C-alpha cells in the first residue's frame, strides 16, 4: 500500500520515516532503512538500561498521547527489581475527534513501533506487551497483526532475541467503540476484559497495571520515536525541536483545509507553515478558529493561533495546549454554536458514567447548548454553561470531565457574541448568510 500524504519533502520524517517508500509498512522496507539495528545493538551489546533512560531524558521526548509527560521520567518510575511479569502497553486507541496520527504509524510504519516497544521492554524488564488499537480501524488492526507475525518470524520479537536471554512477546488487542478507553487505566481494565471505567490513581500503572502488575503505558507516537533516539542520540532528537519540546510531532490536520492529513514537522514550527503544507483554508475562505490538540484543548480564534509556534510552550503561551496535535481547522462559515453542540454531545455520549459530576454535568451541558441551538436559549444560559463546566473540572476520577468542560469554557469565552446572537435571534449569526 502506498501512503496517502502531502508535501512530504517539507516534513521532517521520524516516526513516519518509511512513508516515502513504495511499500512503507513492509519489514523489508524498514530493515533497508536501518530498522531493528538499534534493538539488535542494544540487546547484543547488553547496553545498560540506565544509559538508555539517560538518552530518552536528554531527548526531551514528551508523551504524545496528550498530556506531554516526559517519557524518560515515566520510564524511571517502573520498579527495577520485581519478581514476576512486568507489562508494556501501547495506547493506539485514539478516538478524540480530530486525532488520527497513530493510525498512520500502525499502517505505514508498524515495525518502528514494534522496535520502539521492544527497546522499551528491554529497558524496563517487561516480558509481555499489548498494543491496544481503536476498534473502528479494523483494517489497520489487521495490518499491525500481520506486521507482528513478520517480526516474530524474523526473530525481532519472541523468545531469546538475538541469542540473548531477553524475551519479549507483543500482541495486538482492540477496543470496540468507547472513547474512554484511551484513558490509560480504563484501557488497562479493557485489556483485562472489563468495562472501560478508569481506576483511581494512585496506585499508578507503574506499580499496579495490567493484571495488577507493574505496567508502562505510552502512546504509539512516543514508542515510535525511540528507535530514532537510540540511533542518533537524545541530544540530536532534542535539537530537532525547541526548548522543552524535543523532536518532531505528527500533526493531524482536519476540517476546512485543502488537504487534510498527517504532517510530521519539527516542534516549534510556526502554525502558518503547517497550514500552508495542508494547502491552506479551502474554498478560498478565511480562517476562523482552530482547536489545536483535540477537543480537550481550548479553541483558539484565528488571531491567537496565526502567530503561534507548534510546541508545548508555544501553544500554552497562545492560550491553549498541544494535546495530541490534533488540529481541527474551522473557516469563517462555521457556526460555533453548532460545533460546540456536537462536541458536547460527544462527551455526554462517551462519559463512562462512573463519576456523578461528569455523568450528570455532560448531560446538562449538552441539553443547554441544544436548547440554544433550537432557539430556546436564555441569556442566563451562558453563565449556567460556565458554572456547570467549572463544577465538573477537577471533580472526577479521570480527565474526561476536564476535557468536556474545556470546549464549553473556551467557545463561550472567545465567541460569546455568536452565542448571544443565537439566543437573541434564535438562529445562527454565520449560517445561510449569503
Amino acid at each position: 500500500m502506498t501512503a496517502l500524504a502531502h508535501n512530504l519533502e517539507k516534513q521532517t520524517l521520524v516516526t513516519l520515516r518509511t512513508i516515502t517508500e513504495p511499500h512503507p509498512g513492509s519489514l523489508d522496507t524498514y530493515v533497508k532503512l536501518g530498522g531493528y539495528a538499534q534493538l539488535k545493538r542494544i540487546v547484543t551489546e547488553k547496553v545498560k538500561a540506565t544509559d538508555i533512560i539517560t538518552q530518552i531524558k536528554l531527548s526531551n521526548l514528551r508523551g504524545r498521547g496528550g498530556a506531554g509527560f516526559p517519557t524518560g521520567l515515566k520510564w524511571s518510575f517502573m520498579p527495577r527489581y520485581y519478581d514476576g511479569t512486568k507489562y508494556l502497553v501501547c495506547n493506539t486507541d485514539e478516538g478524540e475527534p480530530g486525532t488520527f496520527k497513530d493510525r498512520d504509524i500502525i499502517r505505514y510504519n508498524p515495525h518502528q513501533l514494534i522496535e520502539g516497544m521492544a527497546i522499551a521492554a528491554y529497558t524496563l524488564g517487561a516480558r509481555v506487551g499489548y498494543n491496544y488499537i481503536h476498534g473502528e480501524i479494523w483494517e489497520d488492526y489487521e495490518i499491525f497483526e500481520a506486521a507482528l507475525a513478520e517480526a516474530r518470524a524474523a526473530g525481532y520479537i519472541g523468545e531469546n532475541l538475538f541469542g540473548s536471554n531477553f524475551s519479549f512477546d507483543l500482541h495486538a488487542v482492540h477496543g470496540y467503540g468507547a472513547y474512554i478507553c484511551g484513558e490509560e487505566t480504563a484501557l488497562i481494565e479493557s485489556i483485562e476484559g472489563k468495562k472501560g471505567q478508569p481506576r483511581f490513581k494512585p496506585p499508578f500503572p507503574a506499580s499496579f497495571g495490567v493484571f495488577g502488575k507493574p505496567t508502562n503505558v505510552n502512546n504509539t507516537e512516543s514508542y515510535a520515536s525511540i528507535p530514532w533516539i537510540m540511533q542518533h542520540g537524545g541530544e540530536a532528537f532534542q535539537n530537532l525541536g525547541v526548548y522543552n519540546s524535543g523532536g518532531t510531532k505528527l500533526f493531524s490536520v482536519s476540517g476546512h483545509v485543502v488537504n487534510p492529513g498527517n504532517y510530521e514537522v519539527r516542534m516549534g514550527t510556526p502554525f502558518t507553515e503547517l497550514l500552508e503544507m495542508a494547502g491552506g483554508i479551502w474554498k478560498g475562505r478565511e480562517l476562523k478558529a482552530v482547536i489545536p490538540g483535540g477537543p480537550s484543548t481550548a479553541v483558539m480564534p484565528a488571531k491567537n493561533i496565526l502567530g503561534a509556534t507548534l510546541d508545548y510552550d508555544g501553544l500554552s503561551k497562545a492560550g491553549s495546549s498541544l494535546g495530541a496535535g490534533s488540529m481541527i481547522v474551522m473557516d469563517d462559515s462555521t457556526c460555533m454554536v453548532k460545533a460546540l453542540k456536537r462536541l458536547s454531545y460527544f462527551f455526554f455520549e462517551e462519559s463512562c458514567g462512573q463519576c456523578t459530576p461528569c455523568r450528570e454535568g455532560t448531560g446538562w451541558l449538552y441539553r443547554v447548548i441544544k436548547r440554544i441551538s433550537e432557539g430556546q436559549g436564555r441569556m442566563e444560559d451562558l453563565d449556567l454553561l460556565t458554572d456547570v463546566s467549572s463544577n465538573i473540572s477537577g471533580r472526577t476520577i479521570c480527565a474526561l470531565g476536564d476535557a468536556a468542560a474545556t470546549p464549553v469554557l473556551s467557545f463561550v469565552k472567545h465567541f460569546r457574541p455568536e452565542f448571544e446572537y443565537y439566543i437573541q435571534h434564535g438562529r445562527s449569526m454565520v449560517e445561510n448568510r449569503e
Partner: protein
Amino acid sequence: MLSAESIQKIEYELTKYPADRRQAAVMSALRIAQTEKGWLSKETISFVSSYLGIPDIAAMEVATFYNMYELEPVGKYKITVCTNISCMLRDSDSIVEHLNHKLGIGFNETTPDGKFTLKEGECMGTCGGAPLFHINNTRMCEFLTPEKVDQILEELN
C-alpha cells in the same frame, strides 16, 4: 453454538493472555461471535461467557458498554456514519441525508428487506478521510461523495 472457525479464532485470542486470565479475551470473543451471528443475542453472550468460564454478567457488562456490539438484530450491512466535528466540518450531514434518501431509513433503522441498517458513530480516529463511514465494523470508506456512496451501495446490492 459458534462455528469451529470462530472457536479457533477465540483460541488464538486466548494465546495472548496468561492461562488464568481467560476473561481478557472477552472483547475479541464477542467480536468474533458477532461477526458470525450478525448480532449478540443473550444466548450468544452466554455461550461466550461459558466458553471462557466467566460469569454471564461479566460478558454482558462488556457487550453493553462498548458501542460496536449490537444487542439487537441489524441488517446484513450496518453502515455507521461518523458525524463528529471533523466529519461534520466536511459535511457529513450531506452524506447522512443522501443515505436517508437512498435507503429510506433514518439512524437506528433497518430497510424492510433487512439489507441495510444505518447508525450514527462517534469519532473513528480517521478524521483525515472525512466524510466517512464504516461497514459492519470492518470496512472503512473515506472521502465520500454522494456518487461514491451510490457506487458502494450498488456494489453491496
